[in-house]
């Protein structure tokens, strides 16, 4: 039986791990390579790096971080943040990323998703969707959650599936950083409307939130703060899910 995945996410800025509250107010902490190794040794099913480096000159740092991490971690590594083009994806894959997540570029030009999934295979193309509630539905935001687009999230999710995305990483902007749980309604709606796996993200504060995320239909649950600040270990999270009869790899 396929197990539900627990994915710790590391927000990386200029080569250092940080974690934002509602995408602002960043606190500095930790070396990404070391953190990733701790997570993979602790049973993480995948590791996710989100590069939130703003300036272009520091952007290249992520390549060496990915390169070092992939030589130490033998579970899948997903890297996202600032990915603009097929060439960016190619570079990250060559450095040892197993999957690349595309956010703003996918919204601006869906051809990036089409071209990259054709070139590298759907298995390594994750489309990251930042969703915010609006008028009874959800709207896509880009640029790290700063820019509204007027695009309906569910329509966009279906479109990305057709373009060849292998997975959708869905973050609720309303919930991110609040530690009040995933936007369960959003996860349910998206999971039932596409046939590709959905990774739930944004808002985890307790282990029950992870349980709720899986029950909403997501194939994987992503969390940053609860692991990063040591509130829970990945292994504790897995034991807890298993105790709630949710299949996990232990």
């Amino acid at each position, binding site marked *: 039986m396929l197990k539900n995945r627990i994915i710790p996410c590391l927000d990386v800025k200029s080569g250092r791990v940080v974690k934002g509250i509602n995408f602002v107010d960043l606190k500095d902490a930790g070396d990404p390579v070391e953190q990733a190794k701790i997570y*993979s040794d602790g049973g993480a099913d995948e590791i996710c790096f989100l590069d939130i480096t703003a300036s272009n000159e520091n952007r290249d740092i992520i390549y060496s971080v990915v390169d070092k991490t992939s030589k130490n971690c*033998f579970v899948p590594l997903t890297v996202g943040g600032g990915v603009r083009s097929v060439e960016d994806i190619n570079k990250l894959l060559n*450095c040892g990323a197993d999957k690349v997540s595309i956010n703003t570029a996918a919204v601006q030009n869906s051809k990036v998703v089409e071209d990259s999934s054709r070139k*590298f295979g759907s*298995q*390594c193309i994750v489309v990251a969707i930042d969703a915010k509630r609006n008028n009874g539905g959800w709207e896509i935001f880009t640029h790290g959650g700063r820019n509204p687009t007027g695009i309906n999230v569910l329509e966009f999710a279906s479109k990305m599936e057709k373009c060849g995305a*292998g997975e959708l990483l869905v973050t609720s902007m309303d919930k991110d950083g609040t530690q009040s749980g995933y936007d369960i309604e959003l996860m349910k709606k998206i999971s039932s409307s596409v046939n590709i*796996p959905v990774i739930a993200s944004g808002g985890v504060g307790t282990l029950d939130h992870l349980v709720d995320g899986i029950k909403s239909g997501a194939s994987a649950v992503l969390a940053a703060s609860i692991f990063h600040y040591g509130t829970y270990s990945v292994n504790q999270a897995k034991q807890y899910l298993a105790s709630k009869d949710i299949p996990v*790899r232990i």
Partner: protein
Amino acid sequence: MNVTIVDYNSGNISSVINSFKEVAKDKVNIEVTSDLNKIKSSDKVVLPGQGSFKSCVDALNNISGLVDTLNEFAIDNKKPLLGICVGLQMFADVGYEEIETKGLGWISGKVSKIDNKNGKYKLPHIGWNELNIVKDSKIFKGIENNSHMYFVHSYELVPNDKSVVSGITDYSSNIVCSIEKENIFGTQFHPEKSDKAGLKIIYNFINL
């Protein structure tokens, strides 16, 4: 000893390289090349593969003489070869991803899309699933039955002769997840991404 990872532009092979180098340490030389002479003279060959069946077969065919060299290595000289993911799938006679495409024909059978039971099962089959060992395989030495392996695929190998199957996994139906036929080995899952158990399989292959 030389182990060659065939670099034929089949997509991202950096994780395969990293894991083989990690396991080999300094004891075994890991080559990454499409050089036909180096492949011929190596002791073992790894055939990775990502993307579609068609794109991988096309990429193999784009390197003049590569298919013949692989045939000579694995079929005529019976030297150990490990196919990973689409690398395994290409052992079949034919694949049906994108359009009907001829495979290497080493394992009689076809590669077809996993039945998603009308959307009940999401595709790709992504994540950790159990390896149910159904036949002793040299590469599974020391691997516990039902160990978790990392999968990413939407297509499955359907061999005509089930006796080549060494492991299956349960996703929608019993999917072939590994084969052993004489000197030919293959895993549908990614040992290079399957944590300690995966590295152990790589170790077993290197030390055959």
